[in-house]
């Protein structure tokens, strides 16, 4: 434990820390541009200079390991003068166009210039100008502003795992670019916007939309995938203008996927802002009363067994609980939250959770991926796997479709039968799992949604048990299910599964085709095959006009994830509370309240009048739901149904990363991403900036 003196105070720090980190522990802020906690150390901006006794020159504190006996001064006139010198150099070629810069107001350079800037320049030569680079439809570049901190380069090669950004030329002619200005092919590319300490890389969709001080900032939860990334929603008036990550080391560290960040423009389009009722074959605007009356007319007198409900991928826990209560009240056992038909059981909870937890990935030393492509199903989780991979000593095997996951893996097989072969130890990779201290496996929806879902789940459980993945003594649970839907774990927790003799999604759709099901209640369910709803009367409750709304007979306009106070349970089983950033548009209402209101029209009034009562009911049924933001370890048990494992290929259920739910399908930005990355030449116009 090196002991050093910082500003006259003796401190002892962990070995391996840098001087900058030691100073931070003392609450001393060191200005910096290139240094970032989650990236490698570059030491090239020189802003973090401090004085060290015995050193004739100042030292870059970010790159200097704290050592025994160092005497560091961070706050004396000499240090200030040095930093002012660095700042003056940085500003030589910086355009100082803050008034027209989107970074203005949240710019590291601007902020630090307040402390170390000189109020006039001594540089009278021409400033350099750099041509802007194309980096794809998400990142706007104004490269003259670049100060060459190389954070974006390091992020791309280290965290995102797509080494596509680089610095070409040298000295004053150094420029940051992608090779031949191709769009960056990463699902995490938007994070370079946050990392950029100046306005060189900014958000293209958000360009000139607002100033940071105009925005109302709401700390909430993302629903674009099952990771439950912690986000901050910035809104002005009734519009969500942008989404930024919040730091949560247990979940998303400080990254979010491009879908999380940029799909928010989908919240402004195709919105269902008033109820609709289908009359003479056409959807016509209606009042809430009319819509409820239309539903009541159809449901009253219909036997419960002929009614079904499907919860979609973005549904919050409250609305699903209310829907379940309503279906119970109507006497319907036909309810399901597994739109993709994945085989998952309601019990035990460990059978459908990511038990290792996201942070736990870093403790594992071997990993088997089954029927999943985490890169497109959960990019932030994939970054965590890559982080662990880069640390070394992490054997990764994949059973499923081979893909570029940004890390090396052994391709163990592609079919369900290969899972069986691994289970019986026929494949050499099983030895890697057996000898690992903390092996883990990740089962994706691609493995469970297929014909062999039940058997694959059982095989995965066997693998977990046989290869020492379940060890309560350590404690370690290496069995993980990676969900693709933000609503899924909440739905399973709340028991949105077929009751006794009830039908699952497949059964419901078979029923509608055969005429055994008359009424289907879709709670934001858009991913099912609408053609198979047959002649059924379809109630669609949701916020975006997508496949479900197009097929519906009655549309009940609900609230999107940014418009309600709601609970979501992520793939780890972590309950997180989303907060309302803006109000739902028009006549749209919070989802649980719609179901509650409908229940009284149907004469089956649900026993809660406000959100607190509903949440109390939820936590009565699921006590772990009371522990917001924490993961309650789930008890192990038997699940899955052993059966034959066929030669069915296990491919990810996510076809296109950018188009997985109604919000991103409505998003123009996501459509641009699809166009740009499908190889079509990107549209570059004079207004692109």
């Amino acid at each position, binding site marked *: 434990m090196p002991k050093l003196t910082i500003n006259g105070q003796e401190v002892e720090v962990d070995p391996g820390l840098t001087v900058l980190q030691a100073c931070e522990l003392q609450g001393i802020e060191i200005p910096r541009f290139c240094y970032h906690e989650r990236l490698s150390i570059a030491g090239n901006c020189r802003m973090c200079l401090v004085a060290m006794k015995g050193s004739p020159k100042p030292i870059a504190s970010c790159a200097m390991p704290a050592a025994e006996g160092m005497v560091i001064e961070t706050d004396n006139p000499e240090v200030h003068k040095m930093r002012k010198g660095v700042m003056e150099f940085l500003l030589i070629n910086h355009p100082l166009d803050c008034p027209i810069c989107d970074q203005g107001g949240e710019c590291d350079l601007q902020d630090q210039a307040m402390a170390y800037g000189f109020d006039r320049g001594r540089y009278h030569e021409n400033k350099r100008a750099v041509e802007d680079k194309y980096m794809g439809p998400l990142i706007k570049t104004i490269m003259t502003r670049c100060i060459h901190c190389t954070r974006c380069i390091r992020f791309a090669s280290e965290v995102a795992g797509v080494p596509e950004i680089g610095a070409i030329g040298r000295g004053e002619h150094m420029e940051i670019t*992608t090779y031949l200005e191709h769009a960056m092919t990463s699902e995490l590319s938007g994070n370079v916007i946050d990392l950029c300490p100046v306005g060189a890389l900014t958000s293209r969709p958000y360009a000139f939309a607002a100033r940071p001080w105009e925005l109302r900032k709401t700390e909430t939860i993302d629903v674009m995938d099952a990771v439950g990334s912690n986000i901050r929603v910035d809104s002005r008036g009734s519009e969500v203008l942008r989404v930024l990550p919040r730091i949560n080391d247990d979940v998303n560290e400080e990254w979010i996927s491009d879908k999380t960040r940029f799909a928010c423009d989908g919240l402004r389009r195709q919105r269902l802002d008033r109820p609709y009722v289908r009359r003479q074959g056409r959807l016509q605007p209606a009042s809430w009363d009319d819509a409820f009356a239309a539903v009541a007319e159809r449901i009253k007198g219909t036997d419960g067994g002929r009614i079904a409900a499907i919860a979609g991928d973005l549904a919050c826990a409250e609305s699903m609980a209310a829907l379940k209560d309503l279906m119970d009240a109507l006497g319907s056992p036909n309810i399901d939250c597994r739109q993709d038909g994945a085989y998952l059981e309601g019990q035990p909870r460990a059978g459908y959770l990511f038990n290792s937890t996201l942070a736990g990935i870093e403790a594992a030393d071997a990993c088997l991926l089954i029927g999943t492509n985490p890169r497109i199903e959960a990019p932030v989780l994939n970054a965590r796997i890559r982080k662990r991979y880069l640390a070394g000593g992490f054997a990764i095997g994949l059973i499923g479709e081979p893909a570029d996951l940004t890390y090396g893996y052994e391709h163990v097989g592609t079919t369900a039968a290969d899972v069986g072969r691994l289970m019986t130890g026929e494949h050499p990779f099983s030895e890697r799992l057996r000898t690992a201290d903390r092996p883990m496996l990740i089962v994706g929806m691609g493995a469970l949604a297929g014909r062999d879902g039940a058997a694959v789940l059982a095989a995965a459980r066997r693998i977990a048990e046989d290869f020492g993945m379940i060890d309560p003594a350590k404690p370690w649970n290496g069995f993980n299910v990676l969900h693709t839907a933000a609503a899924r774990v909440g739905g399973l927790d709340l028991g949105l599964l077929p009751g006794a003799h009830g039908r699952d999604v497949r059964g419901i759709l078979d029923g509608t085709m055969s005429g055994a099901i008359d009424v289907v209640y879709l709670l934001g369910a858009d991913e099912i095959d609408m053609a198979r709803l047959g002649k059924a009367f379809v109630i669609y409750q949701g916020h975006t006009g997508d496949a479900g709304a197009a097929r519906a007979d009655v549309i009940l306009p609900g609230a999107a994830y940014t418009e309600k106070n709601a609970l979501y349970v992520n793939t780890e089983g972590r309950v997180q509370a989303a907060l309302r950033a803006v109000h739902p548009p028009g006549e749209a209402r919070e989802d649980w309240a719609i179901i509650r209101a409908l229940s009284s029209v149907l004469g089956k009034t649900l026993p809660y009048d406000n959100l607190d009562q509903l949440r109390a009911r939820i936590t009565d049924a699921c006590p772990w739901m009371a522990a917001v933001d924490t993961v309650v370890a789930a008890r192990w048990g038997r699940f899955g149904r052993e059966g034959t494992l066929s030669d069915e290929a296990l491919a990810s259920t996510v076809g296109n990363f950018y188009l997985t739910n109604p919000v991103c399908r409505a998003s123009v930005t996501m459509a641009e991403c699809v166009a740009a990355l499908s190889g079509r030449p990107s549209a570059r116009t004079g207004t692109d900036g």
Partner: protein
Amino acid sequence: MNDVIEAGDRATPPFFFTEANLEAARVIIAKYPEGRQASAVMPLLDLAQRQNGGWLSQAAIQYVADFLEMPTIRVYEVATFYTMYNLEPVGRHHVQVCTNLSCWLRGSDAILRTCREHLGVHPGETSEDGLFTVSEVECLGACVNAPMMQIGDDYYEDLSPDAVRSILDDLKAGRTPTPGSRIGRRSSEPADMPDTDAVTGSGGPDGGP
């Protein structure tokens, strides 16, 4: 000066190492530990440049990147960083005239002017017959024999405008002028020393130069 070029504008024919260069590349890579083949990027780029007529095309950069299993941008960074990699086509003879301090004091302005006038091209341009590209370069490390220029791999030193003209005429005629000093110096002994053997051979009065 190595200006960053818009490589995206240039369509280039495909590039593959010849059999001989393939072998040479393998020998170079073998110098580095296994898995560290990226260390060979600079010699391989040089190899590619020589094979490709003195410049690195997009295809060549991509080929080297694939050959070394490196991200293309990493190879591109190297190729743009070093001035001795040419990212645009050059003539058969790349005439690089040093105009740095020592050469400048010894008359490099006249040398460059002679090249320009004799070949009819400005620095950075290639003559119409495709034989010559003239560039102005920074110090090539032959200050003691200034002024100097480099053509291909050869240094021509102690130049005068007449010497430059004769060198260029030789090259134009397909002859290879002898590299080295134009005033008969073998090494960097004082230019006005009449008999260099007196110094380098038998030694001075005190046994050394």
